[in-house]
């Protein structure tokens, strides 16, 4: 809650609190809270400045009439001086119950009735005794005083209700805006709460590139006139509140408040002059100012948080890029060193090398070029992933793609046992074959590298609920639970310094699988109780009839 939101009520109010029809936690309904003035449901009628109401005058008439009757009945038993006290009671009741004018009316009436019925000479309006003149004067004075006090009390109660409701509204907004996770949420809360203050229409305009565009409005779909736009634009240009034009003058119906963030107007919010007129105008203006200020703070917080996040992301991307370059130069250099070394050995020493050594060097060259080629294609796919990825979607047979990946892995690791099983007919999926194959190659590559030679790596393609599941199970040492999600992080290598690799493979996998609308997870121990199973689930769209 903002400190400035507490203030003293102005005392020149004339208008009732609006009873809003807006649903929500804050409802300005003073009469539900408890009304000290029984029989006066309309607060307008009893204010001391307000005109006397028919009800008040009639009630005064009844009170004074009753007093006259009572006075006659008690005429014999009560001393004459107490008559004036009974009349005074009627005046007090009228003033307290119906306000200043009713009290004054009752006083005048009581003055006349008392004079007419009880003051000698009776049944005339002339006054013989000086003490009667005093009694009549007291009537008038007391009536005026009580009416004035009652009216003021009532008015203060009204102001207190209004203030309480406003404070409640402001606190609700404050809570909502500090909880908001997006600028739009804050905007929506602002528009909604501003609308509740005085029931005027509210319109929010976003400022971008020196132009305003209408955002949220309450009620929905508020259309601005040219005059309103002009005023809103002035608020934007000068960064100052542009008040609504006075009633009866040509101009904007809305007061426009700029929301200034980082020295620039971020948006402009317009509040229509409410139906309430001048009654709580000052208080409402303060409430509006408070909401605008709090909203600005909330939006600023979110905008800054977003900027900070963007800066962090950028730094992360930069870090990734430089780490990638470092890793790349290493990963490209290693096979190149092997190739160059082998080739130069063959050229220089070719004749002196035994035949099997030559064959071995040649095999090394072939294997290392294969490795280089895999790095490059991984890099290509990663570039595609980073540049927003243009998916080349087509209907593909997941078993077919898995087979392609298995074949590639077998070619890369000729000695290893890589088994493929396609369980029954698997539905076609709408996906990118090349990317999916790359993802599977990376998973198989990982499984082969992290499991002992001679242990099988099993690839199983199966159908799950509304998805195709491709699981790669190895018989390695498994992955500790804490690391199971981290293995999909870029450059995370699970402390595997003895295994060659970039730490990119599974991160690329995850990127690909997510881009294809699927999910990837690692379970350890794997499906046969040992090692690790990496499982890719890809969605199956509506069945295609062939």
């Amino acid at each position, binding site marked *: 809650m903002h400190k400035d939101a507490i203030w003293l009520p102005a005392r020149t109010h004339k208008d009732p609190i609006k009873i809003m029809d807006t649903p929500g936690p804050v409802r300005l309904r003073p009469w539900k809270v408890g009304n000290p003035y029984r029989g006066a449901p309309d607060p307008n009628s009893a204010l001391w400045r307000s005109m006397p109401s028919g009800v008040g005058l009639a009630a005064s008439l009844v009170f004074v009439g009753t007093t006259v009757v009572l006075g006659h009945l008690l005429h014999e038993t009560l001393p004459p001086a107490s008559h004036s006290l009974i009349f005074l009671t009627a005046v007090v009741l009228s003033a307290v119950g119906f306000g200043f004018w009713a009290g004054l009316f009752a006083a005048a009436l009581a003055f006349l009735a008392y004079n007419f019925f009880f003051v000698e000479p009776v049944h005339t309006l002339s006054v013989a005794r000086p003490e009667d003149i005093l009694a009549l004067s007291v009537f008038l004075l007391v009536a005026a005083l009580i009416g004035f006090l009652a009216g003021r009390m009532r008015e203060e109660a009204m102001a207190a209700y209004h203030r309480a409701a406003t404070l409640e509204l402001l606190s609700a907004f404050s809570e909502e805006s500090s909880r908001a996770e997006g600028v739009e949420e804050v905007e929506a809360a602002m528009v909604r709460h501003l609308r509740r203050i005085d029931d005027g229409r509210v319109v929010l305009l976003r400022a971008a590139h020196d132009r305003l565009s209408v955002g949220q409005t309450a009620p929905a779909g508020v259309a601005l006139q040219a005059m309103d736009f002009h005023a809103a634009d002035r608020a934007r240009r000068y960064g100052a509140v542009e008040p609504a034009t006075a009633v009866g003058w040509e101009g904007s119906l809305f007061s426009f408040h700029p929301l200034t963030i980082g020295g620039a107007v971020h948006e402009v919010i317009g509040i229509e002059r409410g139906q309430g007129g001048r009654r709580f105008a000052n208080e409402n203006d303060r409430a509006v100012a408070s909401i605008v200020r709090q909203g600005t703070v909330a939006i600023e917080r979110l905008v800054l948080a977003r900027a900070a996040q963007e800066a962090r992301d950028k730094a992360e991307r930069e870090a990734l890029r430089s780490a990638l370059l470092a890793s790349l130069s290493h990963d490209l250099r290693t096979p190149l060193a092997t190739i160059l070394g082998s080739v130069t050995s063959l050229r220089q020493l070719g004749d002196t090398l035994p035949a099997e050594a030559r064959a071995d060097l040649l095999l090394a060259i072939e294997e290392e070029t294969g490795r280089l080629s895999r790095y490059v294609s991984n890099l290509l796919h990663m570039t595609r992933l980073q540049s927003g990825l243009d998916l080349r979607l*087509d209907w593909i047979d997941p078993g077919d*793609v898995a*087979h392609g990946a298995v074949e590639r892995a077998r070619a890369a690791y000729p000695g290893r046992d890589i088994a493929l*099983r396609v369980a029954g007919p698997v539905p076609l999926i709408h996906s990118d074959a*090349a990317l999916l194959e790359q993802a599977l190659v990376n998973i198989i590559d990982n499984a082969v590298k992290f499991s002992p030679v001679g242990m099988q790596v099993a690839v199983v*393609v199966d159908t799950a609920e509304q998805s195709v599941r491709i699981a790669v199970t190895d018989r390695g040492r498994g992955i500790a639970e804490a690391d199971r999600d981290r293995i999909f992080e870029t450059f995370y290598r699970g402390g595997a310094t003895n295994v060659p690799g970039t730490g990119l493979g599974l991160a690329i996998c995850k990127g690909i699988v997510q881009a294809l609308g699927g999910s990837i997870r690692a379970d350890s121990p794997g499906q046969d109780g040992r090692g690790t199973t990496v499982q890719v689930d890809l969605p199956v769209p509506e069945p295609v009839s062939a």
Partner: protein
Amino acid sequence: MIGKPLILVVDDEPQIQRFLRHSLAASGYEVELAHDAATALRLAGARDPDLVVLDLGLPDRDGKLVIGELRQHSDVPIIVLSAHDQEAEKVAALDLGANDFITKPFGIQELLARIRVCLRSAKPDQPKDGRIRLGDIVIDGDARRVEIAGVPVRLTPTEFELLTLLAQNPGRVLTHRQILTKIWGPAHVDDTPYLRVFIGQLRQKIEANPSEPKVILTEPGVGYRTMELG
């Protein structure tokens, strides 16, 4: 064809030219080299090669345009060299009339196999008895019967036509579009799901292990290729 077959190699990379020149010459081919599209077209007209190995990335012109120009007056087999990540390029080249493709980097044994297939299909040597053989599989086009190692296999008419089409082009890639146009008609060129479903069914019937097909191979993103004959 008298003497050594002539192969025109069109590639702007001197190192690729170098290794192709040596290895193709050693494999019994005569080699002509071109480093750009203009030279390639000039040499193709002057020397009438038996086969063209064409890189799609040429300095002076898109390699695909070269295919179009060659096809205007020649049926010379064309093998396209392309980078790994360019399925769309490969498909476009094949649909323009290239006979096959090979992805860089490649081993020379792969290229030699493709060259053999292309040179052979340029002079069909299938027996004239109306039967097509594909390993163990014998397709009798007249009787519309298929046998695997002497055991008859029941195929639907579409499966039969699909198998026949693939078997008529042994070792050669056929794009999805080419197959769909031939079997289902030009209106269905984009109905790859049909094709995948029928290929799946066909594999269930003719492959020893349908998960790991050996007869009908998938060229990811491009099409299908039957196994190469001996």
